[in-house]
């Protein structure tokens, strides 16, 4: 095997011609919202910007669940169309957290692994921006080592009973449901990935307790979700019993390569440009951030193009997430060094607030969706080193 055959990044793609018109409509909508001061641009909005009105507005315009086929209420659009909408929302610092998981992950997963009844039940609400989801993967003793999950699913008459604890569940206190990864047969040390299953759990089910886990900022986004013999009907088993591991890992290329992996602090970069207006002497540092952003976006788009054509470039996606999340931190470094405005978590908006949120959210960037060290392990495997 020659290593030149290992594809670190798929070939470049161009957005379809119709994307320009779509982009213009999204920008016009965002400008309207900003003019009415309906929200202020914030950092890390896909974790922290919960705004159900905004999500419904997007749904009304057909900008959520865009790739979902028309029979389930979607537009049957290309992932590249969704890319355009998503990157515009993130760059604007718009509040996208409410629908984020449902739009990015749950919709495509339901299409891939869901039953017809599950699709009919959830997809129209996702498309409308009215049904919100969480992700129930991490546990107190299962972080990077996801196969160590202990939440137990026991077969009972007509369904399953789930007992265990999920943590770091963003938005669980608002969301309608989540996908829980649980152990449906006893742990087998020779095949740790076997015996895991996914369940669609409605978060108002009896036996579900949701407790806040405040972030560094003090804000409530994360939760602990405790199951005490929560009944999940057979119809709500997601995908195949025992195939949970395969299912959760099959969509990593979607999760890891999107624009949210390098745009979490973009509003701070834009604000930095505003602060540097009329000055000279910092063009090189600023230019480096902009060149890197341009390159990251082209990489991420190339992966979106590959995904749109049915490939799953997992290695390239890991690369984008490693580089992109480190880049989000580089913006913070530059924002501190080039402008002397101290961060102020109490400010209503503006540079001081963006910087404060960015600094306090930054540790999460290189953790969520697979730590960068784990991702580099994936890259190393792709290179043939392990």
């Amino acid at each position, binding site marked *: 095997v020659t290593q030149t055959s290992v594809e670190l990044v798929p070939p470049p793609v161009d957005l379809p011609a119709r994307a320009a018109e779509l982009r213009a409509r999204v920008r016009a909508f965002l400008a309207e919202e900003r003019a009415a001061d309906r929200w202020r641009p914030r950092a890390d909005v896909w974790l922290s910007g919960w705004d159900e009105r905004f999500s419904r507005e997007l749904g009304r315009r057909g900008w959520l669940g865009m790739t979902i086929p028309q029979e389930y209420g979607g537009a049957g659009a290309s992932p590249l169309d969704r890319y355009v909408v998503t990157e515009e929302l993130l760059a604007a610092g718009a509040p996208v957290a409410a629908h984020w998981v449902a739009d990015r992950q749950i919709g495509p997963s339901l299409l891939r692994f869901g039953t017809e009844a599950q699709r009919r039940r959830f997809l129209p609400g996702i498309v409308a921006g009215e049904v919100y989801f969480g992700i129930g993967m991490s546990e107190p003793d299962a972080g990077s080592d996801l196969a160590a999950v202990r939440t137990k699913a026991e077969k009972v008459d007509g369904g399953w009973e789930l007992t265990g604890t999920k943590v770091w569940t963003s938005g669980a206190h608002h969301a309608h449901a989540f996908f829980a990864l649980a152990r449906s047969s006893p742990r087998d040390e020779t095949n740790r990935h076997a015996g895991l299953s996914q369940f669609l759990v409605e978060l108002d089910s009896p036996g579900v307790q949701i407790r806040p886990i405040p972030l560094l900022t003090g804000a409530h986004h994360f939760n602990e979700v405790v199951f005490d013999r929560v009944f999940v009907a057979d119809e709500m088993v997601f995908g195949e019993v025992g195939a949970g591991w395969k299912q959760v890992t099959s969509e990593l290329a979607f999760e890891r390569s999107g624009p949210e992996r390098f745009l979490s602090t973009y509003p701070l970069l834009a604000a930095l440009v505003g602060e540097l207006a009329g*000055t000279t002497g910092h063009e090189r540092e*600023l230019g*480096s951030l902009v*060149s*890197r952003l341009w390159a990251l976006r*082209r990489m991420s788009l190339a992966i979106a193009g590959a995904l749109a054509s049915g490939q799953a470039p997992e290695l*390239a996606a890991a690369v984008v997430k490693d580089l992109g999340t480190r880049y989000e931190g580089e913006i913070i470094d530059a924002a501190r060094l080039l402008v002397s405005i101290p961060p102020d978590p109490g400010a209503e908006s503006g540079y001081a607030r963006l910087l404060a949120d960015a600094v306090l959210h930054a540790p999460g960037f290189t953790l969520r969706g697979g730590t960068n*060290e784990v991702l580099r392990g994936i890259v190393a495997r792709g290179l043939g*080193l392990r």
Partner: protein
Amino acid sequence: MSGPNELAELADSIFGDAAAAGDGFDGELWKTLEGAGLARVTLPEEAGGSGGTFTDSAEVLFAAGAHAARVPLVETDLLAGWLLHAAGIEPPAGPLAAVVGELEVDGDTARGRLERVPWARSVTGLAVLSGSQVLLVRPEQLDITDGANLAEEPRDTVLVDGPVAVAPAPEGAAQEYRLRAALGRAQLLAGAARGALNASVRYAGERVQFGRPIGKLQAVQQQLAIAAAEVAAASAAASAAARTVTAEGMDSPTARFAVAAAKARTGEAAGVVARVAHQVHGAIGFTREYDLRLVTTRLWAWRDEDGSDAQWNAEVGAAALAAGPDGLWPLVTGTP
């Protein structure tokens, strides 16, 4: 031209077969490239070229960089051939060199001194963009003092004194020249970065310490993954710039931005990749006896040629400031 994949494979096999180590111009490789139609990819057929796009030439330059080819491809195809042809001077056959510099021109004779001319000693003609004129100087009129870059590629000092072909320079030639040079150099850089990564991965799989290949050590894997990410960014940047220039033309603002960002990004990647490559190779890579130097010295040389990452980033930064906070995103996405 054939499809991008076939072209990449053809180029990879030709450059891979050529002996990378050695001194100076690789005449045999050049003949092979001419035979395969890869020496003048972007020039039109009437100028002895293959009529390909910048995307086609990018594939060739990636491979040339990865295998440290000792041939003036950027100079012949993207610079001298283009400049002469655009000015209405027929490009001579064979390898060409190009430079921007001031010569005293009197009728059809020219004199003066040109610094750090790539490959001057090895070419059949030197194209000079001197103010508003394009000159073709033949080797007989050149008095050459050898010089080199960090990779020992020829960067000669040239005294010109004698008859030359002269024509008015096409409009915007100076601007287009620097963009073409930066684009070609960025693609060579992306290729060399890939070459350094490949060599390092191979070495990490072979070199045994502590009873196993060092590539099995997580500390080494993490470093190689960081280098791979830089290689990916460099490749994406260089490919995207080629594509933008192919689609929009060299004189569009989008293309200018893309080329600037690509040369800056590939230049930034060069240092990281070379550092990791040498760290992984240990002492042997630090010697002249080992071929890693062929790509790492090129990374170090090329990142500072045709505009360093600092210079291009300064231009990108100035463009960002001019765009302002609301214009930055349109600038990055190329969609006003």
